[in-house]
């Protein structure tokens, strides 16, 4: 039985893991870098150990330092969270060697799913659909035609040596195959000195849909349904929801069965996620497996009614899963928004800084997983995600309205955040109708970034607020001046004049 858990992570996920440990009565140990002494996870834990300088490579990725902290604190288990060492097979192996329970899968499973080619082969063997295509080089037109007909149009022809979009052709019509093949090969030859190409199915309207799985050490595996993660920017998820508005019950059941098969194929235990890419017609293909807890796990917890971290700990303890597949169902609808410290109006540029004021969204159906607080300075070294806002409601429409309401309540000053941008998404027709894919943000830019009509009054009100803020700042400078030196002298100080 696990008696003390070291959480080898920081930020919201460290706090989230410690929450479940506290509810289970298990003491927790935090580790922190130089940049994180004031971070919430250090305050939250029962114990806290410093493990090195701010850069992750010298602290949160430093296996020796983390093992040392575990030994010092006599922690008998380590939860890696997500990111950092969570999918590092050597770390899982090292824990095993040191007699510390790694709350996650075996090193073998991590390795097997970490290598894309091995993972693809494992899935094919397990009967899980993968994106159709060939990695063999194609040099011959007849061969190309045969392969493309097998895969079915549209396809993408890609240069084997390729990259940067060169030697790439999207083929939609059969009559274009020959010319596209010729074009791609000639371009590849010029660019890379190698005219060999390969062919892959082109998913035209891609949906990112993933399945949560849980597997124990006794060979039992179940899925906890899907998460729709197609709202992305810079290939990073922004909003997730469950159930997916795309899936029919039949396809959901089929995908779930494939997800379980995938987990069993690598002798998995713990919590994991099978990522699929799907098109508008619900054709779906295995993309990859994440052998850890996922950022967006709370929407599954809310709709299925399961605490995934507790289940992970129970599995690590050697317990059997407490439910069978048929015990689980999706109840209502959940949405998660990731709140980043970033500037949506400036290409989502990170915006670290000090939090001056927070009004947290509260009330019915709102879960908030965060770690920042007033006066906290977000370090520049780590992820810009500051919290996750999760809502639940009876149905999708109410959940969207609730998320809109929660985002309206959520006010942070000090740093720029994605909150107003996310609020806008909740009003976008394509999102509200549920008919969206991974191109959503790109395709809805005009609506998402359009200014909101406010009869011109909002702008004047904003000006008045700026006036008040700035004039009170000037007053403060003035009164500090008055306190410290005769009033006349201030006019000679160039530093101060600069503020006026």
């Amino acid at each position, binding site marked *: 039985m696990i008696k003390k858990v070291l959480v080898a992570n920081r930020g919201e996920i460290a706090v989230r893991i410690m929450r479940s440990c506290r509810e289970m009565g298990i003491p927790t140990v935090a580790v922190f870098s130089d940049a994180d002494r004031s971070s919430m996870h250090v305050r939250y834990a029962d114990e806290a150990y410093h493990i090195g300088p701010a850069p992750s490579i010298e602290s949160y990725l430093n296996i020796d330092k983390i093992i040392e902290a575990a030994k010092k604190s006599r922690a008998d288990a380590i939860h890696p969270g997500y990111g950092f060492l969570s999918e590092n097979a050597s770390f899982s192996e090292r824990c095993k060697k040191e007699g510390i329970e790694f709350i996650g899968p075996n090193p073998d499973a991590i390795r097997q799913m970490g290598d894309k080619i091995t993972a693809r082969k494992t899935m094919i063997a397990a009967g899980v659909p993968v994106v159709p295509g060939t990695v063999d080089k194609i040099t011959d037109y007849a061969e190309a035609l045969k392969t493309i007909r097998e895969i079915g149009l549209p396809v993408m022809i890609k240069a084997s040596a390729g990259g940067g979009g060169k030697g790439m052709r999207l083929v939609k019509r059969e009559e274009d195959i020959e010319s596209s093949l010729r074009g791609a090969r000639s371009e590849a030859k010029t660019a890379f000195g190698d005219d060999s190409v390969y062919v892959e199915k082109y998913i035209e309207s891609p949906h990112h849909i993933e399945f949560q799985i849980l597997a124990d050490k006794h060979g039992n595996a179940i899925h906890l349904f899907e998460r729709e993660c197609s709202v992305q920017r810079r290939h990073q998820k922004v909003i997730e929801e469950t159930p997916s508005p795309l899936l029919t019950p039949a396809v959901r059941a089929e995908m779930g069965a494939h997800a379980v098969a995938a987990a069993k194929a690598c002798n998995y235990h713990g919590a994991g996620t099978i990522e699929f890419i799907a098109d508008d017609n619900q054709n779906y293909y295995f993309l990859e497996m994440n052998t850890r807890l996922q950022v967006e796990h709370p929407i599954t917890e809310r709709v299925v009614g399961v605490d995934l971290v507790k289940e992970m700990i129970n599995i690590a303890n050697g317990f059997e899963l407490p439910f069978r597949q048929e015990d689980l169902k999706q109840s209502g609808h959940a949405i998660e928004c990731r709140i980043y410290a970033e500037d949506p109006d400036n290409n989502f540029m990170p915006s670290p800084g000090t939090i001056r*004021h927070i009004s947290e969204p509260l009330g019915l159906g709102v879960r908030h997983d965060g770690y920042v607080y007033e006066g906290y300075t977000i370090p520049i070294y780590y992820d810009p995600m500051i919290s996750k806002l999760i809502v639940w409601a009876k149905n999708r429409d109410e959940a969207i309205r609730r998320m809109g309401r929660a985002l309206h309540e959520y006010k942070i*000053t000090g740093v720029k955040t994605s909150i107003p941008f996310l609020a806008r998404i909740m009003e976008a027709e394509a999102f509200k109708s549920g008919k969206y894919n991974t191109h959503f943000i790109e395709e809805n830019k005009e609506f998402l970034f359009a200014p909101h009509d406010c009869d011109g009054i909002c702008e004047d009100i904003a000006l008045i607020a700026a006036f008040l803020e700035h004039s009170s700042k000037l007053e403060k400078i003035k009164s500090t001046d008055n306190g410290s030196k005769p009033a006349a002298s201030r006019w000679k100080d160039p530093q101060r004049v600069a503020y006026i």
Partner: protein
Amino acid sequence: MAVNLPPAAGKTRNAWLIFKLIYMALEINIDGRTAQVTELKRDGNLLTIQVDDEIYEIDALKVGEGIYSMIYKGKSYNIEMIDNGSPRHYTVNSFYNSYQVEVIDAQTRYRQSRSKGDSSDTGNTIVSPMPGKVVRIPVKVGEAVEAGQTLIIVSAMKMESEFKARTAGTVKSIHAAEGDTIDANKVLVVVEPAAE
């Protein structure tokens, strides 16, 4: 602009403290528009304030650090001020809308009149938009650069940003070193544009 302003409140911005006993006024740029904002009367949080031609009687209350609650004609507005690391620049959020605001002071006006616009607007001065760490500076002072050439790479929060020269020219000065931790709004590299 500033039609109904009281006498003396209009133009001499660098001496506002002198007439502050009568009227406090600021010139503020919001998303490109320059507005004259003049406080006419203040009674606790009840404010009479002129924005260009419009006079507002508004109940304006600071309820937290950078958080203002305004009631105007019965409507309740919530405004959040976000510092931009520079004392005269703010991002102002009024729920859906986000405004870029700059308070114009004597120095700015002087600088603008000399250089015809903020030098950073021409792309010849690279200013850090956020705190971060300098990863690499692939140019040297005196080096000729092309438009689009990378001048400096800054990393923050798992993301690297490359800053490029907007026009061709010569690197005039570099104000950071590789490995430096930098604040927002710090001038990093200045390029002297080539004669056109």
